[in-house]
Each structure stands twice: as structure tokens, then as C-alpha cells.
């Protein structure tokens, strides 16, 4: 019988309490009539099924009643319902949106099979934590290692694509044949590369991206076998990738084989390959790392000149996002969670107030036989119903803000769109919603129903006033204020950090500089000659300078703060200082320029001269170096007239001695927040013929005195006049190039600030709600005080004091929490202290202001109390 009684626990407690004895009695009667084992087994089975089925019905019945009751209650208090739904909706919406992005970018595995076995391979040395691989090193790593199922390399390439219309500059990726096998992805159409495609002298082949297939070939299925022209060579289309394949980055239009040679002929210190690998099943990343380290050590011994101190680095592939971006994402998820907590605290407070005001009604229901469990269940149904309505509102809010949010996140990720709410995110929202309803509903329900008895029915009982309940509500408000302080401080610190980063001097004056990329086709014979190029540059420069409003114009191989410069090792002679030994930090950023570049960009020439027209192939090789080059390699010496050469082997151009003819200011070419290597600028006219086409200047920079938008058309015309086949791409303002540096920061700050303002508003509503409620409950008391002669001022200060106590309590806890939060995100703060007094002070003042304005209405209501009316209420 005990077992049957245990079954009965499936029924709602109220039902069980009422009918348990009867049910047991009937079961016992039937048991006495069952004689053989079969009928006994049947009795148990049917008894169990009966309990399960009817218990489910009974629960549904109660739920239906409770929902009907809830609907009635909420209809009677629409303002309350609306407030609760909006508050919860904001919290859940903020979380859904933030989670959706974080999930895509940080939590979800990359969209490749067994992506946990994919790794990224780098070289590292004491100066650089990671940098690209050279073809011979990649070749040897792949040849000598046993931990990998596949290993491949890729390099992005900008290509001139000549289709039906104007020539276009497109982004492609050169990959070793095993690239697709490493990622284990299949083409949508056709095939991917075989080893033959990557061999020297193989016919050109390409695999198209879905986007290119759609835009250039209109999605035609007979695209396979067609040829396209890239950089003046023909390539046969052999495959098309699926629409959701983006690797290594969005925007890549095609993949073509990277021909390395067997073995590669390139220099061992020419590092430009990105390596990826797939670990064999069961091989840990540590094991692979150890193996490659051994191999790299062996190569360092075999090739001491190029590979000294170079070792291997193996990272999981999904760690490709910069640490700072990861941190910002976590920060925004944390911020949205704070908003949710505040919203929920508000909801709990609202529910508590409501439940307290309903104690009389609850007491009546208890008196006519509803158990405590039944009442709690009723209140929980209400809170969950509110939360679900809030959740639905939240999903709508999230759908509205998601496109904005995902635009913020860098698009250079191998991911599909994050602007769609999928099942996984909706499941998260559902969980958050239910948790909100339960967790923040149970406390008020429990509190309201504890000790429900005839006290609640007493005439004029001041329900919910004083003592523990008041304290609980105050604590909830204090928690809200603390959290909003945390958010305010976070937003404040991040903004200060942004200002600090924005005020970093990039080393040049980006205002009023227009840049245009002109790509000289590397394989076109005439542009392989320096003389042809120089003539072309001279024609363009002269014509552009003649345009009204143009101050100056010049060309450079690659702009500061964009990818594509070269990091070259240098040998500066025996006198280098102690920390400048080989393989250490003796690298420079190398760029090739035409004369007048420094003047155009606003880079100060500190000593000596600019590159000049007379620095030709026949003249001695010269170089202009940056200030830090001198400080680092020739401290306290006059650099003018001194010589250095690049520390490349088997590369005559690089091994030439170069005379330093000028010193210019440092440029932060790696970005505002990154330390840059010292810089070396070479003369465009001194490049060798038919070599180093990659370094031929292609960025035209133009300083203007007028609004430059009117200049774009004439400049385009000038270039087309000089060579109608040249594609023009990337027309940008230098200011925008610099702003891109801080764009993710600004966007994230906008987000965190929005959350902070939202939280402040919610906290204000919380304070207002609490004080309104207590004032409402204490009206008779105020009436009495006023009748006894209390001044408005005294009543006012009483209420405001209460508000200030709440604010101070919240501010104190909040500051403490904010300190920890600030410390945790130190890497984002660009040197701003987590206890920055202005930020902390500002946040506290904002919260005090919000508290005071939240207390004002209740306070005015208290002052305006009509003593006679107020005392008559009870």
C-alpha cells in the first residue's frame, strides 16, 4: 500500500489531501478481491496508469483554472501587467540578442566536421608570439610530422578579374590542394583540388564561391569547365562551394591552387603562409605541439641563418578571433545579463508588491479551503504567464536589434549570418523566460503566502508594511542599483578607453586625405618594368596634382593600418645595442613610396631628406627610416649616411647596402593600439625590374584642400585615361581607415551604454515602484503626522531619505562589483584605471539623480495627503 501511496504523489497536493484516503480504500478493496498473480499484476498496472493519466488531467485542470484566474487578475490591472511585460521583455530581448551573437562567434563550434580537431599553425620567435609560415618550413613541417590527418596552407590574394564589364579587383584565396580535405568540406558542384592541380605547370583551375557563382554566372549549372581570366591568365572552373562556406573569411570570391613546388624554391625566411591542420583522431593538441616543436628545433639547427629561435605554435582553429573582440563580446553578454537581472528584480518587486496588496484576497481563498501550495501555484502561474508574455515581447525586441548588433561584429569570420534567431537561441530564450518566471516568482509567492491566515482578513490591516517584507523589497532595489552602477561604470570605463585610443597620434594627419587603390597586374609584362611604372605614376601624379583643390599626391605600396605591408629583418651593423641581436626584434616594417609621400600624409621629416626623383636604379640605394629605427638600432648616433641591409639570404636586392638619407616620424602602421616595428621606406624607382611586384606602390594618396567627394570622378577619369584596363578599387578616406580601428570598440560601447541606460531606467522604475507602494501603504500615517502639525518639508525629507539610503547602499555594493568587473576587462581599458575617479563619481551621481527623481512623485503624493481622507480609509 505504501507503493500505491507513493504513486499518489503524482496528483496535485490539494487533490491528494482531499481524496488520498478514499483512493487507498478503493485500491485496498480491489486488492482483497484479486486472488491470482495475474489479477494482482493487472490491478497494479491499471492502478498506476489510472494515477498517471488522472494526475495529468488534474494538473491541467488546475493550470486552466489558474490561467483563467490570471487572465482575470491581469485584465483588472492592465498597467501592472504592461509594466511587467515591458520590463521582462527588455531584459529577455537584450539577452536573446547578445546571446545570439556570442553563441555564433564564441560558443558554437566552427561549421566543419570534427572542428575540434582543426588547428591553426604559426611560427613564433621571442619577438612575435605568432606569424606566418614560410613555404619551405611549411613543407618540412608537413613532411616530418605524424600527428596530422591533413595539413595545408593558404594565402589571400587580390586578383584582377576581367569579366564581361569593367575589370574588377576581387579577393581570392590561394590554397594547397589538401585545403578542402583538411576542413573536410564538399563542393556544391564539381570537385575541389587534387594534388595534380597544385603541381608546377598544371593548368589553372579555380573553385568558385557561391556568391561569385550567383553574381558572375547567374547560378548556371553548366558553369563547370568555363574559363575565367584572372591577372591575365586563364583558369578553368572545376567546382562551386556551398553558400554557407566562408573560409578563411567572408568576402572571398574564389579559391585557386597555391603552387609551392616540391620542394619549394622560395626563401626560408619569406613568411606569408597561413597553416591549418587536422589532428589525427585521438591525437591531442599538446602532442601535436610537442611534435612540431621538435621539428622546428631541428630546422633551426639545420638552417641557423633563417630559422634561429623560430619555433612552432599550434592553436585551436576557433581561437582565431582577437582576444579583444572576444573580451568585448563577453562584456556585452555580461552587460545584457545584468540588464536581465535588474529587469527580473523589478519584476519580483512588482509581484511582491502585488502579492502583498492581495493578501486579503489570498486569506479569503485560504479560508475557503485553498492550501498554501495551491496559492503559491496560483501566484507562480501568474509570474510565469507574465514572463512568457515578456519573453515573446523580448523575441520581437531581439529580432529588431539583431541586425544592428551583428553589423557591429567583424565580418571577417568564417561564419554564417548571425541575424537569424534559430532554434538554439529560441531554446535559450525559453529557458531564460521560464527561469525568470519561476525564480523571480517563487520568492514573492512564498513570502505572500507564508502565514496567510485570518490576520489578512482583519479590517484595516496594513498589509505588507514594515518588518521583513519591506526589507526584502529594499534589498531587491539595492541589488538593482548595484547592478546598474556596474553597467554605468563599465560603459564609462570603455568610453574613456575609446577616447584614449582615439587620441593616440597615428603618426600622420589622416584628415583630408583620399586614398584610391590602383592595382597594376603583376603578370603584365610592361608593368614589371620599373621604368613603365614610373612613367605611369608620374603621369597620374602630375594630372591629379593639377586638379583644383588637390594639395599633393603620392603613392605607397600599402597604407598604414591595412594588411599587406612587409615585415623584413634588418642587419644594421656590429654596433647594434644589446637587445637587437639576430632573430630578436630586429625587424622593420618595409614600404615602398614615390617622392612626396611624407608631405602628402603629413608625416614629419625630422632629419635629412625625402625620397627624391634622383633616387633611381643607377644611383646608390637609399632609405628613409623612422625615428624608432634610429633609437632602437643606432641610439645616440647620427643615422644620416649610415648603411644597413636586409637580412635575407639569396636575395640580391635585399642584401644591397642602403644609405639612410632621412629620418621621419613613427607611424602606427599596425593599428592605433598595437606597437609597430620601426619603419623603413624605399624609393619606388630603386625596385628591381620583374621582381617584388607585390611591393610596387598601388595606393594613391591625395591630400585635398576641399571636400574630396567631387574629386573622385575626375581622378577615376585620369587613371582610365592612363590605362583603360586598370581596375580601381577601395576608394577610402584615410580618416575612415583610422576610424575602422576603433569601430568595433565604438559599437560595443554603444551597446554597453544602451544597456547601462536601460538598467538605470529600470532601477529608477524599481525605486519609484517601491516608494510609491510604501507611501501608498503609509498614507494614514502621513495623514496623522500632518494632522499633528508635521511640515511638508519633514515628510519630504523622510521619503527622500529613504530613497537616498537605498541609493547609497546600492552604490556601495555596485562600486565594489564594478571594481572587480573593471579588473576583469583590464585588457580592454587601454590603460584607463578600473578605479577612474571621474567614471566612478559620474556613475554614482547618475544613480543618485535617478533615485531622487524616482522618489519625487511618491514624495509629492505624501505631502499632498489630505489628513481627514487618509485616516478615514481604514
Amino acid at each position, binding site marked *: 500500500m505504501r507503493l500505491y501511496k507513493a504513486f499518489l504523489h503524482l496528483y496535485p497536493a490539494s*487533490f491528494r489531501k*482531499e*481524496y488520498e*484516503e*478514499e*483512493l487507498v*480504500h*478503493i*485500491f485496498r*478493496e480491489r486488492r482483497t478481491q484479486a486472488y491470482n498473480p495475474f489479477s494482482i499484476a493487472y490491478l497494479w498496472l*491499471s*492502478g498506476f496508469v*489510472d*494515477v498517471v*493519466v*488522472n*494526475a495529468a*488531467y*488534474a494538473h491541467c*485542470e488546475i493550470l486552466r483554472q489558474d490561467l483563467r484566474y490570471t487572465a482575470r487578475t491581469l485584465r483588472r490591472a492592465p498597467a501592472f501587467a504592461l509594466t511587467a511585460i515591458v520590463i521582462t521583455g527588455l531584459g529577455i530581448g537584450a539577452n536573446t540578442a547578445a546571446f545570439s551573437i556570442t553563441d555564433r562567434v564564441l560558443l558554437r563550434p566552427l561549421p566543419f566536421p570534427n572542428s575540434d580537431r582543426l588547428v591553426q599553425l604559426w611560427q613564433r620567435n621571442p619577438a612575435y608570439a605568432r606569424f606566418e609560415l614560410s613555404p619551405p618550413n611549411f613543407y618540412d613541417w608537413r613532411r616530418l610530422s605524424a600527428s596530422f590527418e591533413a595539413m595545408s596552407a593558404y594565402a589571400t590574394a587580390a586578383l584582377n578579374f576581367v569579366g564581361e564589364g569593367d575589370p574588377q579587383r576581387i579577393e581570392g584565396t590561394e590554397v594547397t590542394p589538401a585545403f578542402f580535405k583538411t576542413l573536410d568540406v564538399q563542393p556544391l558542384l564539381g570537385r575541389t583540388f587534387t594534388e595534380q592541380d597544385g603541381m608546377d605547370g598544371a593548368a589553372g583551375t579555380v573553385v568558385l564561391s557561391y556568391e561569385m557563382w550567383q553574381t558572375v554566372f547567374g547560378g548556371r549549372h553548366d558553369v563547370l569547365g568555363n574559363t575565367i581570366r584572372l591577372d591575365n591568365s586563364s583558369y578553368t572552373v572545376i567546382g562551386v562551394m556551398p553558400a554557407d562556406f566562408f573560409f578563411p573569411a567572408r568576402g572571398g570570391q574564389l579559391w585557386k591552387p597555391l603552387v609551392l613546388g616540391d620542394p619549394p624554391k622560395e626563401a626560408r625566411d619569406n613568411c606569408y603562409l597561413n597553416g591549418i591542420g587536422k589532428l589525427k583522431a585521438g591525437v591531442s593538441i599538446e602532442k601535436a605541439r610537442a611534435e612540431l616543436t621538435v621539428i622546428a628545433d631541428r630546422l633551426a639547427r639545420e638552417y641557423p641563418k633563417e630559422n634561429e629561435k623560430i619555433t612552432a605554435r599550434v592553436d585551436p582553429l576557433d581561437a582565431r578571433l582577437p582576444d579583444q573582440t572576444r573580451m568585448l563580446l563577453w562584456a556585452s553578454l555580461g552587460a545584457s545579463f545584468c540588464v536581465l537581472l535588474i529587469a527580473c528584480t523589478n519584476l519580483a518587486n512588482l509581484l511582491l508588491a502585488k502579492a502583498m496588496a492581495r493578501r486579503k484576497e489570498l486569506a479569503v481563498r485560504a479560508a475557503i479551503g485553498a492550501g498554501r501550495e495551491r496559492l503559491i501555484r496560483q501566484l507562480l502561474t501568474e509570474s510565469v504567464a507574465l514572463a512568457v508574455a515578456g519573453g515573446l515581447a523580448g523575441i520581437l525586441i531581439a529580432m529588431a536589434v539583431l541586425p544592428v548588433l551583428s553589423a557591429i561584429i567583424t565580418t571577417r569570420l568564417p561564419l554564417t549570418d548571425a541575424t537569424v534567431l534559430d532554434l538554439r537561441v529560441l531554446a535559450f530564450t525559453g529557458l531564460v523566460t521560464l527561469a525568470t518566471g519561476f525564480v523571480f516568482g517563487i520568492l514573492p509567492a512564498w513570502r505572500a503566502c507564508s502565514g496567510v491566515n485570518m490576520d489578512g482578513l482583519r479590517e484595516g490591516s496594513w498589509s505588507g508594511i514594515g518588518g521583513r517584507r519591506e526589507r526584502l523589497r529594499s534589498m531587491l532595489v539595492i541589488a538593482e542599483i548595484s547592478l546598474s552602477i556596474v553597467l554605468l561604470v563599465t560603459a564609462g570605463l570603455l568610453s574613456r578607453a575609446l577616447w584614449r585610443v582615439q587620441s593616440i597620434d597615428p603618426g600622420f594627419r589622416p584628415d583630408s586625405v583620399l586614398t584610391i587603390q590602383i592595382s597594376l597586374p603583376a603578370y603584365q609584362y610592361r608593368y614589371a618594368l620599373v621604368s613603365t611604372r614610373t612613367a605611369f605614376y608620374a603621369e597620374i601624379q602630375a594630372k591629379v596634382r593639377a586638379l583644383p583643390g588637390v594639395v599633393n599626391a603620392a603613392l605607397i605600396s600599402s597604407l598604414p593600418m591595412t594588411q599587406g605591408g612587409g615585415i623584413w629583418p634588418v642587419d644594421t651593423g656590429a654596433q647594434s645595442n644589446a637587445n637587437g641581436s639576430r632573430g630578436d626584434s630586429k625587424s622593420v616594417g618595409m614600404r615602398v613610396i614615390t617622392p612626396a609621400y611624407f608631405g602628402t600624409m603629413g608625416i614629419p621629416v625630422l632629419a635629412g631628406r625625402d625620397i627624391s626623383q634622383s633616387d633611381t636604379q643607377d644611383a646608390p640605394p637609399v632609405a628613409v627610416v623612422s625615428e624608432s629605427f634610429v633609437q632602437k638600432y643606432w641610439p645616440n648616433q647620427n643615422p644620416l649616411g649610415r648603411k644597413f641591409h636586409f637580412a635575407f639570404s639569396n636575395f640580391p636586392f635585399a642584401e644591397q647596402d642602403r644609405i639612410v638619407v632621412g629620418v621621419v616620424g613613427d607611424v602606427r602602421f599596425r593599428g592605433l593600439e598595437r606597437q609597430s616595428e620601426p619603419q623603413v621606406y624605399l624609393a619606388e624607382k630603386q625596385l628591381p625590374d620583374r621582381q617584388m611586384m607585390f611591393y610596387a606602390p598601388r595606393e594613391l594618396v591625395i591630400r585635398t584642400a576641399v571636400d574630396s567627394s567631387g574629386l573622385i570622378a575626375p581622378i577615376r577619369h585620369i587613371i582610365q585615361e592612363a590605362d583603360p584596363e586598370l581596375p580601381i578599387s577601395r576608394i577610402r578616406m584615410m580618416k575612415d581607415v583610422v576610424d575602422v580601428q576603433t569601430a568595433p570598440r565604438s559599437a560595443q560601447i554603444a551597446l554597453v551604454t544602451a544597456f547601462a541606460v536601460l538598467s538605470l531606467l529600470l532601477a529608477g522604475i524599481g525605486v519609484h515602484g517601491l516608494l510609491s507602494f510604501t507611501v501608498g501603504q503609509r498614507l494614514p500615517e502621513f495623514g496623522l503626522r500632518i494632522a499633528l502639525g508635521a511640515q511638508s518639508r519633514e515628510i519630504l525629507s523622510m521619503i527622500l531619505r529613504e530613497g537616498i539610503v537605498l541609493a547609497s547602499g546600492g552604490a556601495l555594493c555596485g562600486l565594489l562589483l564594478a571594481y572587480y568587473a573593471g579588473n576583469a576587462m583590464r585588457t580592454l581599458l587601454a590603460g584607463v584605471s578600473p578605479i577612474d575617479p571621474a567614471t566612478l563619481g559620474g556613475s554614482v551621481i547618475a544613480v543618485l539623480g535617478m533615485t531622487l527623481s524616482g522618489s519625487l512623485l511618491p514624495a509629492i503624493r505624501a505631502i499632498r495627503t489630505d489628513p481627514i481622507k487618509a485616516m478615514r480609509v481604514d
Partner: protein
Amino acid sequence: MPFKQEEIESLLPLPSATFHILMALADEDRHGYAIIQDIASRTDGTLQMSAGTLYRSIQRMQEQGLIIETRERPAPEDDDERRRYYRITAFGLAVAKAEAGRLTQMVKLARARGIAPERT
């Protein structure tokens, strides 16, 4: 006692368990197990109402005012002290009659169509 027609009709058609319980209580007050036995005997054992169904119905019927729990006990020799006895209310009787009328009407319609046997 007159009852509002709408009030009665709002409950029709009655779930068959409810109708059977009302019939079981029409002639005398009974406790739960007695109701089950009565239904079984009146239907020649074809309808064996389960305890869960019975008490869920009883709970709802009490809320609807069709039956009440009675404090009057039967003769001491028949009384089981621990049992709870239920009695049909006047309203319950009116609802049961209305349901019976509704069913009769249905049977009449079926006969007119020739899909139910004629009264013998």
C-alpha cells in the same frame, strides 16, 4: 426549486462518467467504492470506473454543485465510519434529467433515420 435553463444547458452534454455518477446517486447517498460498484452492476460489468476518474469527477461535480458531501450517515450496520458519502443535489437532479432528455431526443432522431431499433 427552479434553475436557470442556461445554467443547466451550459453543462450539457455531460461527460459519461458524470452522468453515471449522478445516476448512481439518484436513489441513495453512496461512498466512492459503492458508486463504482453500482455503475458496474448497472452496466453488467462493462463499465469499470477507475478510482482516479471517479474522484476527479467528484471534485469537479462538487465545484459545479451537482453533488455534495453529506454528513448524514446511513443506518449504523451499513455505515463505514471512514468513508465519505455523496448526495445528489436538486440542481444535479435537474441536470441529470436534462441530459436524459437530450439523449432521448437523440435516440428519437436516430430512430427516425432507421439507425436505432424501434421501441419494443
